[in-house]
């Protein structure tokens, strides 16, 4: 470029052979989604690989010790004539089995779990307040009231739609509803309230689901005995 007489003149033609000098523009190598970073980094080997290896060994050690100390359950041979009371599914299904106590199998065994799986799948495509903008800007009493009304309606639904009031759903519903309404009612002065106000709607829905699922599973696992009656694990043992 030191010679000022040579000037590049772009030429337009359909015949590529007619062009004597061709200029190719090559884009700098870049991944579509990976951004270059100037953050401090370290080599995966040995730093990360070593940590992973230690984590694997710790897990293995824990499981080996557990396996040496506690035997996997084995009862008598399967007998279709003899139904144990209570018959329980493995622990990760006991939340659903606990729901069977309140709702008919179509609701507890098909509709609700189907709804949960569907919700989990669509959660990232569910574009409400996804970018963590504050739900409440300053105080918004009508907003808080709206949330509390929705909470009350959902709670009433779960109290009256079932054979017995579904407390493991109702209590978390009220709890999460209050969390959502608090910053709107009280403002965002303490940092905790600001934090609550800036959570996304999917955050609250997931939190609600998590508490409900944990409560149902814990009750089904620890607090249910013969005939699915309520028992206390420290008094009656775990069935």
């Amino acid at each position: 470029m030191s010679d000022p007489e040579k000037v590049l003149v772009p030429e337009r033609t359909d015949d590529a052979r007619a062009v004597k000098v061709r200029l190719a523009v090559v884009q700098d190598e870049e991944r579509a989604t990976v951004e270059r970073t100037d953050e401090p980094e370290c080599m995966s080997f040995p730093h990360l690989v070593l940590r992973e290896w230690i984590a694997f060994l710790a897990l293995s050690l824990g499981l080996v010790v557990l396996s040496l100390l506690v035997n996997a359950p084995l009862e008598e041979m399967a007998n279709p004539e003899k139904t144990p009371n209570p018959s329980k599914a493995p622990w990760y299904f006991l939340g659903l089995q606990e729901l069977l106590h309140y709702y008919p199998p179509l609701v507890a065994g098909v509709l609700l779990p189907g709804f949960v799986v569907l919700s989990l799948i669509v959660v990232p495509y569910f574009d409400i307040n996804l970018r963590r903008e504050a739900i409440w800007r300053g105080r918004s009493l009508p907003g808080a009231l709206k949330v509390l009304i929705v909470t009350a309606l959902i709670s009433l639904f779960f109290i009256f739609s079932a054979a017995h009031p579904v407390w493991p759903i109702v209590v978390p519903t009220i709890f999460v509803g209050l969390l959502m309404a608090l910053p709107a009612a009280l403002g965002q002065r303490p940092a905790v309230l600001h934090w609550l106000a800036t959570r996304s709607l999917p955050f609250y829905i997931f939190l609600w689901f998590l508490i409900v699922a944990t409560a149902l599973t814990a009750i089904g696992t620890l607090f249910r005995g013969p005939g699915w009656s309520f028992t206390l694990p420290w008094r009656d043992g775990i069935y």
Partner: protein
Amino acid sequence: MSFLQRSRLFRSIVRHGLPDSVRNRALVTFTNFFLHIQPVKVRLRAMQFTRTFYLGGLSAACFFILVVTGVLLMFYYHPSVPRAYEDMKDLEFVVSSGVFLRNLHRWSAHAMVALVMLHMVRVFFAGAYRPPREFNWVIGVVLLLLTIGLSYTGYLLPWDQLAYWGVTVGTNMAAAVPVLGDQIRFLMLGGHGVNENALIRFYVLHCVVLPLALTVGIALHIWRVRKDGGLYLPPKG
């Protein structure tokens, strides 16, 4: 050591020197089939223990332990009635370390279900499910379902009262599906109740179909994490 390193055999397997330089350390990750799923360099923020609690990696580690112990258990197991239950008793009283083997498989299975669930919770609260990673979240949900499916199909195999009635309760729920319920249950069990047909179905699903599906799923899951720029880290500032 250096003699070994310079040998033709060694150089044909490992094509770089000792990992004593940055270049060679990069080559360790880069040229090793098992390590290449990881980037050569990681950001320090991604290395913090509390960032991930290693939950995804430990789920995969559980799967590895389960495959190893599961293959060993398969040497001693016949998926037929009443032989399946007798094999459990043989594991207990005849096979060397049989009880330990079964315990390790059982507890690793429970640990895997719990770890996968915790991994999902961690990923959600980190916000890592959001674009552009939304489809990897969907794959993750499928992996959770496969894990539960693996655990549940394995639950029947000992053919004891716990297994039999646990599976009866679960498949009765499937029968509640409107219109197709009974057909779905028939498809799952190969009959109208939990019997020998159900055992062989659950066995094949447990030992072949679901582990293969899970392996492919895990590969896809990790591959997409890499393509999306590695571990999700919240933007700084």
